[in-house]
């Protein structure tokens, strides 16, 4: 089996290496993906005039490809729910999950807890900055959400899972992740109510200051906040379930 796998891998790899001769050279500005006929040139040239967002990646992510990003967020949400569905019947089936949360048997280390208390607010503040400043610098809802989730996971690692679940219990995390998708899809439906297509941010102009182009920018911000809610909650749910084998107590 191992030898067969190796042979298959070597054949596939040598075919791919042979084909790499036809690929464009490194940094070729006229390669098929970068040439003037491609849509990416339109993104680079038009996105600032149309959306007032200097970060082109955010403009493409949340505006031009808003549908795509919305369903990526839904994929994350569904993955979190599936993890809970798979793991919730492990362990003791007759006891409610996370019902009688006992205190962590070992007392958490003083130095670790104090360091975490010092570091976690800074991580969370930086995560909020990354979400809010994603239009002007690298960042956005996904990155900021993962950072915020990481701060909760850090607290769970330092003081045990029950302590972190007291801050953000699993049902509450699921509600939070659903709120994120409701914010995203709700903003799309609001655009429809105001006469546009789904996620056509220009039509929210009457509700927001500073004109049609800026409405795109603000719509992106709202959508990114929705993404950040979902990603934060689901990252924490994934950690909480995987680290405790679905029992939501004990943990690592």
């Amino acid at each position: 089996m191992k030898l067969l796998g190796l042979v298959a891998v070597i054949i596939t790899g040598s075919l791919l290496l042979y084909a790499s001769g036809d690929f464009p050279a490194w940094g070729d500005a006229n390669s098929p993906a970068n040439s003037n006929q491609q849509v990416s040139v339109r993104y680079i040239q038009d996105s600032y005039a149309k959306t007032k967002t200097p970060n082109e990646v955010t403009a493409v992510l949340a505006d031009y490809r808003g549908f795509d990003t919305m369903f990526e967020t839904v994929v994350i949400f569904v993955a979190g729910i599936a993890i809970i569905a798979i793991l919730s019947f492990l362990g003791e089936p007759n006891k409610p999950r996370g019902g009688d949360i006992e205190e962590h048997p070992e007392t958490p280390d003083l130095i670790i807890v104090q360091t975490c208390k010092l570091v976690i607010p800074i991580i969370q503040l930086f995560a909020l900055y990354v979400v809010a400043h994603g239009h002007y610098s690298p960042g956005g809802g996904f990155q900021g959400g993962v950072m915020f989730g990481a701060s909760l996971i850090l607290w769970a690692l330092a003081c045990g899972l029950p302590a972190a679940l007291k801050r953000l219990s699993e049902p509450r995390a699921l509600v939070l992740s659903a709120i994120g998708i409701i914010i995203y899809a709700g903003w799309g439906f609001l655009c429809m109510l105001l006469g546009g297509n789904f996620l056509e941010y220009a039509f929210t102009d009457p509700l927001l200051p500073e004109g049609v182009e800026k409405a795109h920018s603000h719509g992106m911000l709202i959508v990114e906040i929705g993404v950040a809610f979902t990603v934060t909650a689901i990252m924490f749910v994934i950690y909480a379930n995987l680290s405790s084998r679905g029992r939501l107590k004990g943990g690592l």
Partner: protein
Amino acid sequence: MMLDHAMLANLIEDTVVPKINFWIYIILMMTGLYAMISKNNLIKKLIGMSIFQTAIILFYVSIGVKSGSGIPILGAETQREFHEVEHHNHEHDEHPEEFPDVYAYPTINPDDYANPLPHVLMLTAIVVGVSTLGLALAISQKIYHEYGSIEEDEILAQIKTRSDNDD
């Protein structure tokens, strides 16, 4: 012997060096594929899947590179030019007799900025990759709970004996 070395060096210089990024990604990808096919342990298979995924992410990002370009975020200078044009056109709308001209927005040279599209596609792929990996780990935990092992051959043997017992 010296000639052979020179020929080999020329061959490498002609084929490998210009496409060194693709060679690295293909080798990385094949490492992941080998782990997915040949490893017996489910977690090692998942590690192989992650390596495979990383190779594809690197491949996409390297497609968007243009030599001499910067990150796909407009600089402060370009933003100011846009604002000046916009301010002027606003004045034109208010007082057409004082400001008769309408300025066009400055054109941006696309070669100055890296291609944003692969970055966007991979940004979402990374996060979705994390959640699918979490799902796969959850399924492995379920399998371990059911069969007491994450070695593929042991699981298959148990499945076989169980189905034989049912018959």
